[in-house]
């Protein structure tokens, strides 16, 4: 029930965020900004080997140091005997503290708590661990070979028929198939088949993981931390530590970036355990080096993909195999890559096979549209090649095959109303698409898709006695969601957004909510806010009816006022503030609470145009211009929608050009810092033009679609396609760093 032509008074405006002043003055408290009296400092001992058996741990010398209060190992964790489902707690427990084996360089082995951080660091040096070093494997293809060292000796590949007899590093084989592949390729006039490589990249949030935990004498645990979901932290800690959920309270700090990398726990269970052992509050803050060695990353991959088209541009068939590094434990987003890579297109015949492969690297974590940028990189490059071979404009080729309402997604269902074609048409009409290019310059286009999530959310809307309103959110505000939620409440109630104060509540003061992730908060928690505000309006109408002595059915709510319907006598309209002031006399405080499992999440599509200039001497690529077009459904706060798009583009450009976790032959990360793991800086980028296409999601009250993840999907191929246009060299191996590009250019000239 979209409001269609309704004119909004708050939604679509650009007020200053309520939490903004605290964030520009340094008052806002992030994960590491919290401290308690008597607090100890924790540290984590990490494996110096990429793969080894842990034969024994002796902490006695560490405990002899004055100021050391506790040392823990996996022996202090309950044994998780089985694991399955979306979160495998068997794996999670062993990632938090290695049990029996360490599976990557940097894998946590023990943790200490001491009176100062320096003493904690010294204590870690005195914990003696005896290792039996094992052969290790880093490369996804090597890990699949029958004689590769096994990370998990009891892991048998799922998804094979018949079931395999020998264990393997391949956790699972997955497939999406439809139509007749042979027939599809037979119909094609042109076929391209290529291989692609991408490397592990890190989410690169600026705020490292940090936690303070305090255990009371009664066993109650309070945790302060920054995460993408304090309810997730509570649930994961309870499960891993064998505590009741009700024993743990998690208070969310401001979160300094996550991008998927803060959707799990690393430090929190350690801090709780150390607090339990020492009887003192314990704080642990990860170093940047630990972040790079032991958190994230997004997977490295190898893809072989084949795409066929008729002379008129119709895509007839696609076949692809995707091999993704899961890291130390299964769970790469390879299936999501299979599901999303062809989602913008109607291809009748396809077979997409994904392999989830364990290697001796950190367990991969979600990273913004997990899997989608990698799969899209392959397909969007192939489409660019086909467009050139067929002599068709790359946007026109995409339009010719574009998914639309009623067309079948590669993973099965038919799309409802989507705005992919609109993004293509808007991109084609954008001035950048016709801007003349000079020598060594090139233009690339690519599209992208993400599902967007709904799921469980709660919200409360509380009316204060002076008519101001509190919106209580259960989701950490990672990019301006407070102000978006406040805008929706203000819209419903018909009051100014400055009268609405959004707050993020802890696990004990608001109902459960799923993570801040999946581009879901403005959509799903926003839906809960809208419903809660509507409950408040019902109460406001009832109170006005009591004051006027008329039936509630005769009271309308309009633009912040209760109005008596015609024929109910002469009454002045009652403002929300007036009703609130007298609430105690008409039935008590007015508030609305809603918990829901949001249905109706709608997918998002984007099309990006990238112009580059390549320095043929050095291989340096400069981004000259960039335009991102995206169907956002309805932008609640357009500035923050634009910001999501610009940020996604910047991360995608980094992935395309520079970012790469480099491991040596022993599996040791060689670039665990921002100097050598180079994310884009201000001087690397131009202004990023954003064009918001608003094809309303018909199932949301305001038409909202998720926004945050789609924009990281197209840039990888958009940049690579632009580099091809500038140089004539196809780069299918990311990142397209200067040395790689220079090598490729040299190869072109010598070959």
């Amino acid at each position, binding site marked *: 029930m979209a409001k269609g032509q309704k004119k909004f008074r708050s939604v679509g405006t650009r007020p200053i965020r309520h939490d903004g002043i605290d964030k520009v003055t340094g008052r806002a408290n992030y994960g590491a900004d919290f401290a308690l009296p008597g607090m100890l400092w924790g540290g984590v001992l990490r494996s110096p080997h990429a793969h080894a058996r842990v034969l024994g741990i002796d902490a006695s010398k560490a405990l002899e140091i004055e100021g050391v209060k506790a040392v823990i190992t996996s022996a202090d964790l309950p044994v998780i005997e089985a694991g399955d489902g979306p979160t495998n707690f068997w794996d999670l427990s062993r990632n938090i503290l290695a049990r029996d084996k360490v599976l990557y360089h940097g894998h946590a082995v023990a943790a200490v708590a001491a009176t100062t951080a320096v003493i904690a660091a010294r204590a870690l040096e005195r914990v003696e661990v005896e290792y039996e070093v094992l052969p290790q494997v880093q490369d996804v293809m090597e890990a699949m070979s029958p004689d590769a060292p096994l990370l998990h000796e009891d892991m048998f590949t799922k998804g094979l028929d018949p079931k395999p007899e020998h264990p393997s590093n391949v956790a699972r084989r997955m497939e999406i198939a439809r139509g007749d592949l042979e027939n599809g390729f037979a119909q094609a006039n042109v076929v391209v088949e290529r291989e692609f490589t991408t490397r592990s990249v890190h989410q690169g949030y600026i*705020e490292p993981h940090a936690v303070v935990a305090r255990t009371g004498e009664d066993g109650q645990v309070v945790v302060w931390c920054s995460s993408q979901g304090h309810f997730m932290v509570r649930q994961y800690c309870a499960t891993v530590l064998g505590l009741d959920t009700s024993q743990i309270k998690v208070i969310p700090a401001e979160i300094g970036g996550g991008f998927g990398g803060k959707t799990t726990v690393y430090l929190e269970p350690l801090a709780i355990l150390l607090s339990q052992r020492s009887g003192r509050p314990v704080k642990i803050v990860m170093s940047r080096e630990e972040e790079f060695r032991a958190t994230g990353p997004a997977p490295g991959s190898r893809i072989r993909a084949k795409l066929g088209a008729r002379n008129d541009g119709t895509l007839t068939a696609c076949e692809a195999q995707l091999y993704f590094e899961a890291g130390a434990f299964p769970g790469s987003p390879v299936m999501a890559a299979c599901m999303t890579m062809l989602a913008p297109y109607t291809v009748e015949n396809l077979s997409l096979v994904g392999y989830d492969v364990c290697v001796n690297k950190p367990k991969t974590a979600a990273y913004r549209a997990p899997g989608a940028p990698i799969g899209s990189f392959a397909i969007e490059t192939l489409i660019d090649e086909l467009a050139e071979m067929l002599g068709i404009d790359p946007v026109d080729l995409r339009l010719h095959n574009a998914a639309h309402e009623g067309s079948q997604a590669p993973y099965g269902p038919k799309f409802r109303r989507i705005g992919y074609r609109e993004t293509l048409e808007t991109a084609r009409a954008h001035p950048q698409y016709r801007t003349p290019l000079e020598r060594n310059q090139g233009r690339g286009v690519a599209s992208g898709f993400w599902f967007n999530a709904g799921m469980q959310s709660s919200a409360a809307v509380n009316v204060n006695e002076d008519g101001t309103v509190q919106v209580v959110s259960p989701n950490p505000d990672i990019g301006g969601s407070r102000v978006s939620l406040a805008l929706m409440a203000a819209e419903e109630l018909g009051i100014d957004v400055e009268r609405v104060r959004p707050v993020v509540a802890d696990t004990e003061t608001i109902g459960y909510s799923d993570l801040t992730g999946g581009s879901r908060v403005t959509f799903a928690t926003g839906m809960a806010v809208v419903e809660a505000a509507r409950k408040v309006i019902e109460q406001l109408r009832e109170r006005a009816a009591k004051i006027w002595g008329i039936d509630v059915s005769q009271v309308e709510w309009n633009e912040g006022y209760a109005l008596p319907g015609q024929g109910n006598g002469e009454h002045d309209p009652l403002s929300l503030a007036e009703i609130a002031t007298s609430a105690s006399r008409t039935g008590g405080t007015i508030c609305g609470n809603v918990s829901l499992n949001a249905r109706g999440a709608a997918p998002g599509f984007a099309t990006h145009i990238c112009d580059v200039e390549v320095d043929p001497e050095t291989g340096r690529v400069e981004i000259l211009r960039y335009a991102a077009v995206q169907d956002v459904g309805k932008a609640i706060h357009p500035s923050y929608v634009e910001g999501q798009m610009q940020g996604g583009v910047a991360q995608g450009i980094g992935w395309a050009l520079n970012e790469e976790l480099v491991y040596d032959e022993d599996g040791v990360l060689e670039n665990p810092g921002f100097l050598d793991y180079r994310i884009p800086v201000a001087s690397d980028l131009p202004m990023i033009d954003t064009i918001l296409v608003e094809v309303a999601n018909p199932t949301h009250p305001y038409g909202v679609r998720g926004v945050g993840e789609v924009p990281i999907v197209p840039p990888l191929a958009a940049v690579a396609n632009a580099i091809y246009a500038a140089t004539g060299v196809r780069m299918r191996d990311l990142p397209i760093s200067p040395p790689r590009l220079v090598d490729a250019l040299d190869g072109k000239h010598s070959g």
Partner: protein
Amino acid sequence: MDPKTHVHTHINGEPVEFLSEAYRSLLEILRDELMLTGTKEGCTTGDCGACSVTLDGRLVCSCLVLAVEAEGRRVGTVEGIARGETLHPVQQKLLEHAALQCGVCTPGIVVAATSLLERNPDPTEREVRYWLAGNLCRCTGYDKIIRAVLDAASELRGASPNVLE
């Protein structure tokens, strides 16, 4: 216990004394001893700029300054940028342009950008981009930050000297 040095300094215009071991950084003392947590720690290797402060008016990464080096010097942190309830134009324009998402790099951006505008009141976009190249932001793609700083520069140039002071 490691020996400590008694350090006398001025932070945001006020006299401050503290004790520090020789190996501790100014960042650690600001955050963990003086509770000035507006200065953020992103890397401790001088790569991210989240810990930007001024030392005798010069922009530095406080993670690369030893706390004892602050002896007899003036330290400026993000907490000292606003005048009471009046935000500095850089802060105000960052808000108006929605130039922060998570906000953890913002204190460093505020300190670095105000430092830029003190020495160059009329920077080009390119000058702003290069000055802020040491301040990593992973959320915004920098677009709105650059616009906000240019807008703040414009406002400062049009404002009276009193407001500038």
